[in-house]
């Protein structure tokens, strides 16, 4: 029987949404698999998370250690290597923690690795078939993963949402005594909170959001004029902040702000999952992009294939004349 471990990330005593998403992912890998939650941490927060997981998982492995109070990937890896069966499938989120932990974990477990799975097509023999994306979401690929010696797989947060139930009535198994030596060559110091910017994009009902398609810093004015005409605020995708054209506080995405507007105007944005991950509340998404194959058109409500540098001024004029 396939054994699957689901590594539960959590903060402030509350499990991340991915805890629920693993259940659907695991069922797609192998509906008959044994699925166990693994929670590491320390103190009351850990107990709270572990107890809450018994309503979803039959078995919840808890690892309590002061050294695990902050999820330092190197420390977590050591604990997992000492506790988990390396021939199993280990699931983790493809987020900033999973990216830190999992490639190295697969080496130490001597198992296969697959990153950022968006779908699973099941196991045939010792081969697990899954779907992932390449080139910023422009193309998808089928990938086979030889799980005969175990596998570490990260799943894309959000795509396995909507599972029902899980299996309540589980028990917590305390494996803290098996964690072993948790000294690390990398030591967590502190979290530096994001700076607050001049404009709070999370409060705006309408966002005019710009990406690479804006081409030059001077062109941002064109987006500002459209935003002004619409009573909106200008936000952006990551490349605009990397280029230092707008402040970090204007960035929408998993590594930036989470926004909940009514209308989201994606102007020259390709639509990577990291960007879309920052858009919540199911807004009406308008996508304008000169590349008809831009991934944003798969998730937008309405799409227009045009150059934003010509389209935005025309739209601004039309709105002003209303």
């Amino acid at each position, binding site marked *: 029987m396939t054994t699957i471990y689901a590594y539960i990330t959590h903060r402030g005593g509350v499990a991340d949404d991915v805890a629920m998403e693993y259940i659907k992912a695991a069922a797609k890998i192998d509906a008959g698999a044994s699925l166990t939650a693994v929670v590491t941490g320390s103190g009351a927060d850990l107990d709270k998370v572990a107890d809450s997981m018994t309503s979803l998982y039959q078995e919840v492995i808890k690892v309590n250690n002061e050294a695990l109070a902050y999820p*330092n*990937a190197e420390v977590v890896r050591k604990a997992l290597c000492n506790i988990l069966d390396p021939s199993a499938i280990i699931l983790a989120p493809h*987020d*900033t*923690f999973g*990216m*830190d932990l*999992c*490639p*190295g974990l*697969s*080496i130490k477990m001597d*198992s*296969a*690795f697959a*990153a*950022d799975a968006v779908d699973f097509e099941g196991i045939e023999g010792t081969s697990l*078939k899954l779907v*992932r994306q*390449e*080139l910023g979401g*422009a*193309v998808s*690929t089928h*990938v086979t993963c*030889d799980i005969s*010696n175990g*596998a570490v797989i990260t799943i894309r947060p959000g795509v396995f949402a909507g599972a029902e139930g899980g299996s309540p009535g589980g028990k917590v198994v305390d494996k803290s005594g098996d964690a072993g030596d948790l000294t*690390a060559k*990398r030591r*967590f110091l*502190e*979290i*530096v909170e*994001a700076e607050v910017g001049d404009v709070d994009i999370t409060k705006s009902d309408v966002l005019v959001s710009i990406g690479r398609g804006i081409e030059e810093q001077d062109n941002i004015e064109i987006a500002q004029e459209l935003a002004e005409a*619409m*009573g909106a605020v200008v936000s952006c995708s990551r*490349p605009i902040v990397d*280029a230092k054209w707008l402040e970090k506080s204007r*960035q929408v995405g998993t*590594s*930036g702000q989470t926004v909940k507007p009514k209308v989201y105007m994606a102007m020259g944005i*390709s639509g990577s999952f990291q960007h879309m991950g920052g858009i919540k509340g199911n807004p*009406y998404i*308008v996508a304008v992009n000169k*590349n008809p*194959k831009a991934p*944003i*058109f*798969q*998730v937008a409500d*309405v*799409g*227009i*294939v*045009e150059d934003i540098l010509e389209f935005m001024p*025309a*739209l601004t004029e*039309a*709105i002003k004349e209303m």
Partner: protein
Amino acid sequence: MEILVCVKRVPDTAENEFELNSEGNDLDRDDLVYSVNEWDNYAVEEAIQIVDNVGGNVTVVTVGDDESEEVLRREMAMGANNGILLSDDAFGGSDGRGIASILKAEVEKGKYDLILTGAQADEGAGQVGGMLAAMLDMPYASLVNKIDVEDGASTIKVGREIEGGNQEMNEIDLPCVLSIQTGINEPRYVGIRGIRKVAQVEIPVKGASDLGMDPATVGEAAAKTKRVDYFVPDLGEGAEMLEGSTDEIITQLIERIKSKGGLA
């Protein structure tokens, strides 16, 4: 400080519209524009800035074919001192673990204090840096957006990008492996003249035997994770595409935005 930066030649996502070939199982690669993986330019820039501050050398390395030499030259034009091309037919079809094991063999031939990679490349897995670190038993940090190096110290401070725009600060022992996130710096511009300057610099090419590697441990046969095909997913309806003249499109669009509460 001796710094090794691992780079990769990739199809440029900003310059290409990706299409499948006629069989529908691979990209149509005939007219693809390739360039250096975007993240790698930030890694090389960071390495150059560190060496400018505390001295040392920057070496760039890639696993690839003859055409990958151009990305090494580009990074050398930025200011990297040396380039190394790891190339062998036996390397073809390697998965992330295979690439990491090839790089490991080269790392062990030198003496590096710091090894940098881009946080991810064209395949979007972000795997090679973390695997390489684990193979070398070196500490690792991913998605690094700040590095503080003090001359002569045995540790460095690194900031990692985490969710919500926050930054996680860590102290990490040297030698270590870091994967570099975009935005950590502003990579310098490289002009044609810069590339011409390094056009004649010799770049050693090393194969499996030069690295003391058993070819059976890398390449497609050894890969545990294999790409079967490429496809364009059927994601249902997708966006309603507005067509017509720009004026017609704008009229339709304004109507829709109004009905959704985006315009008074």
